[in-house]
């Protein structure tokens, strides 16, 4: 059954005011993006019921979490909340921490427990005390603790912000796997575009407590109106399906949802859905089709717009069929090639970052 899940909240804190209204997707990852102080965490805390002085209305799965008359307390909202700082109970073992939420929600299922331990690789940590865990391990335990109570919604507040790069790389694959396995909505707060492009299906951008953008990930990363575009690490996401496997060279041919054919590294099961990420820095342009290039993916494209211009570089928006790509090239090449709007060009894609199944 389809539910309308909506969140429309207003809260004033000191000099800051948050006023947002959006739809909570029934499943998939909704990213809340914004700089520090934009109200991301406050918004998440409103969803969880941790903010006391909030006004507005939150409807989720036919339940009223918040309206004029009442605010359901956090323990009755059946959510899972992952805090930036894990917040494991220091006086309990890892196992006791994990059981804390399970006992209180009455969801003691042996089978799902084992597979989750495996998924997050925490089976060996159960007897340890939280103080003896690394940052990445703590966060994995915190994620398991939140999921074991079988929440209806998972709220993640910059789960990787307190980790160094090595630990981030350690935990990201687990989050990607979660994204594929869970059938509940995840609201993921972050200020890292890289995390967003890897995990989210939809992105909501906050600025000074207001929603300034809210769209699907592919649009959020490629459309000219998106505030996410003008960043150093511009990247686009394409959803694709494996159409052919080339065992001889260890490649797979994929076709994107808009019909673009690409070759990617690795042999994947035919029919498998993949999320591809293409960084603006990995695309170069030619006016005519290069005949003898080492690059496999050379596609005809149309130049749509110059998104951003700096002293030495331009960020271009290009269309390949209906797929939008971004290319960052030097200003000098831009002038030398005499590139113009609506011009037909060829894009060479040097690297495609692959990701597992898209739900």
């Amino acid at each position: 059954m389809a539910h309308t899940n909506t969140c429309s909240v207003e809260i004033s804190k000191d000099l800051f005011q948050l006023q947002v209204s959006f739809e909570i997707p029934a499943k998939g990852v909704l990213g809340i993006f914004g700089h520090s102080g934009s109200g991301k965490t406050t918004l998440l805390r409103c969803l969880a019921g941790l903010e006391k002085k909030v006004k507005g209305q939150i409807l989720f799965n036919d339940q009223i979490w918040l309206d004029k008359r009442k605010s359901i307390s956090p323990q009755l909202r059946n959510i899972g909340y992952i805090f930036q700082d894990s917040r494991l109970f220091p006086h309990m073992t890892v196992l006791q921490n994990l059981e804390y939420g399970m006992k209180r929600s009455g969801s003691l299922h042996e089978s799902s427990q084992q597979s989750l331990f495996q998924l997050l690789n925490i089976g060996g940590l159960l007897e340890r005390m939280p103080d003896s865990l690394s940052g990445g391990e703590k966060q994995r335990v915190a994620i398991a603790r939140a999921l074991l109570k079988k929440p209806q919604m998972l709220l993640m507040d910059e789960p990787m912000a307190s980790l160094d790069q090595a630990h981030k790389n350690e935990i990201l694959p687990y989050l990607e796997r979660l994204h594929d396995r869970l059938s509940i909505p995840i609201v993921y707060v972050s200020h890292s575009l890289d995390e967003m492009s890897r995990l989210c299906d939809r992105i909501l951008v906050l600025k000074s407590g207001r929603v300034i953008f809210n769209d699907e990930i592919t649009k959020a990363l490629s459309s000219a109106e998106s505030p996410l575009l003008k960043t150093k690490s511009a990247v686009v996401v394409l959803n694709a399906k494996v159409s052919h496997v080339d065992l001889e060279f260890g490649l797979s041919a994929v076709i994107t949802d808009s019909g673009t054919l690409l070759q990617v590294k690795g042999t994947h099961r035919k029919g498998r859905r993949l999320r591809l990420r293409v960084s603006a820095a990995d695309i170069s342009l030619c006016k005519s089709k290069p005949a003898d290039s080492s690059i496999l993916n050379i596609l005809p494209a149309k130049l749509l717009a110059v998104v951003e211009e700096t002293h030495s570089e331009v960020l271009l928006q290009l269309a390949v069929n209906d797929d939008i790509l971004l290319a960052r090239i030097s200003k000098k090449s831009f002038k030398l090639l005499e590139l113009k709007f609506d011009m037909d060009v060829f894009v060479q894609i040097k690297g495609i970052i692959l990701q597992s199944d898209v739900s």
Partner: protein
Amino acid sequence: MLLPDLAPLFLTIKLAVIATLILIVLGTPIAWWLATTRLKIKPLVEALVALPIVLPPTVIGFYLLILLSPQGTLGSFWVELTGQALTFSFSGLVIASVIYSFPFVVQPLQGAFETVGKDLMEAAHTLGAKPLDAFFSVAVPMAKRGYLTATVLGFAHTLGEFGVVLMIGGNIPGETRLISIAIYDHVESLEYAQAHMLSFILISFAFVSMLMMYVLNYKSRSQ
């Protein structure tokens, strides 16, 4: 050598045990409130709780005498309820001890609850724990060192009380004749041997309980 009558010792221990139990039960919600409230009257309550630390016991004893006497507010109510006076009775001593030792229990508990903080309580709520459940499953076990300190201090402080007892309890054997009063009596009657013996018992007791507290504290810290 004349052995001192040990009844005052046992009466003192009985008083200290009962008073400490009441102190922990009463002190817990007040300490939690003080640790978590953002109301502006917090310093006022803190100052009131801390008063017994700085006041001479005779001042506390004097006002308690007025309050607990059969003509006083609490005293007359007690007489109506039980038919007995609170002054110069064991029940009166329990009430007096609770007031007198209050800061020694509330302050360590408050400090312990403050270090627990609201973050972990929030985590407990998001995991489905109701406020009282979260309090007993997270705040109390995390504040266990605070409870240890509060118990030992409350107990030891009640053991050593003299001024307040003298004002409202007097010296009734088996009812209000506590060890400190007994020692005072022995000294008055120049029975130094008995005074020595009771004093030595009190010193040993105080030392052992302090030692226990620090050892347990040390253990739980190094865990």
